[in-house]
């Protein structure tokens, strides 16, 4: 684990350690996703059925990830840490990849609570739905850690992140809902994979321009 991947691992570890010490983000995400599922129970009419619930699961996941992403770059903003990272002798895309890995860890932990809770409250999830969640999480974190870096550079970062992120997340929701409810989930999973590849490459290549002065 040296070189590029070593840098990525060190950066992701730093975020996880910060979270373990301060517990800023993860408890909020867990509570939020549970509260959202409860709200959805009351938002759905009695006879709405399971298919509507699957749709709302994706709304809950996207908004929960937004909550985590909004705080993703806060540690870097304090005390000029981002400037230090940019000056560090490493490829700048490693900063993005490290942040993506950390964001994925947070979102994965939130899903570890959210998915069993969803099964308990609403309806069971099959293997293709779980595969959809996995692929969508990668896409959400890859794009999200880039656009939250963009939003963090602006004045109104909490307001801007959802505005920028939600149009980009619409394809993810389509793929995820399709993987959960469709009879042939294969093409939706393929689509999610395509989304991940396209936007991960784009984010990886573009990140340098977002953080350098």
């Amino acid at each position, binding site marked *: 684990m040296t070189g590029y991947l070593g840098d990525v691992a060190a950066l992701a570890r730093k975020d996880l350690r910060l979270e373990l010490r301060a517990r800023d983000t993860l408890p909020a995400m867990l509570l939020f996703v549970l509260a959202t599922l409860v709200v959805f129970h009351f938002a759905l009419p009695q006879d709405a059925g399971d298919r509507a619930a699957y749709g709302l699961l994706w709304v809950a996941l996207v908004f929960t990830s937004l909550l985590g992403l909004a705080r993703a770059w806060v540690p870097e903003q304090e005390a000029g840490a981002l400037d230090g990272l940019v000056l560090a002798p490493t490829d700048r895309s490693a900063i993005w990849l490290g942040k993506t890995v950390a964001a994925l860890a947070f979102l994965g932990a939130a899903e570890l609570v959210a998915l069993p809770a969803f099964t308990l409250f609403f309806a069971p999830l099959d293997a293709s739905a779980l595969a959809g969640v996995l692929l969508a999480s990668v896409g959400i974190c890859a794009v999200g850690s*880039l656009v939250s870096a*963009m*939003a963090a*550079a*602006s*004045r*109104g970062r909490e*307001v*801007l992140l959802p*505005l*920028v992120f*939600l*149009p*980009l997340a*619409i*394809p993810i929701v*389509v*793929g995820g*809902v*399709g993987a959960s*409810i*469709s009879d042939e989930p294969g*093409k*939706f999973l393929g*689509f999610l994979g*395509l*989304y991940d590849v*396209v*936007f991960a490459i*784009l984010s990886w290549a*573009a990140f340098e*321009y*977002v953080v*350098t*002065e």
Partner: protein
Amino acid sequence: MSITKPSLTVLATVAATLSGVAVAMIFFVAPEDADQGLSQKIFYVHVPIALTAYACFGLAAWKAFRLLTTRGLRYDLESYTGVHQGTIFGALTLVTGSIWAKASWGVWWTWSSNQLVLFLVLFLFYCAYFMLRFSIEPGPRRERISAVYALFGVALVPVSFLAIRLASDFIHPTVFTRDGPQMTGEMFAAFCVSWAAITLLAYVMYRVELAGKRTDANLRELREALAP
């Protein structure tokens, strides 16, 4: 400026003339659609506007790409103007599409028209461009972030299109198709003239807007230089 101004005047005149010719052709040369009647005439405006919006977004992304690769300062305003024009034409696409949907399907909005939904997504995405741009301090960082955002836009177009195609499978089992009768030669000619007119109009608007934005930026620089 002395070189660009006359050519811009000429272009604007040509665009205006061509628009007049296009309107005349739409109403007098192209035959009336057997199925949809008079309401089909909006096709000659709606589709060229939509294609022009795509072209503007594409131009914005190309200029953004040039900005990131060459660090040429002038590309920032060019890319910004492209997004600006694209958003205007995108909004017009939504409006004309909505009118067409009302005329032919009886509703102002339908989720089964994939192109219309795509434009709604793009419209939301590019509106956020302005929010993002104006909440970052002017400078190289804003230019780069705007450029990266504009580049994301062109990746979002095909991905969203594919997504909306896929989504229509589970939102609407049956999809409307707009396959009217085949276009006749006159219809196609009217369509092409209209397309050329609107593209040229967009280009003239782009040039005017760019000149305005440049003047604005220069003025701001001067003001900052003169401020005590």
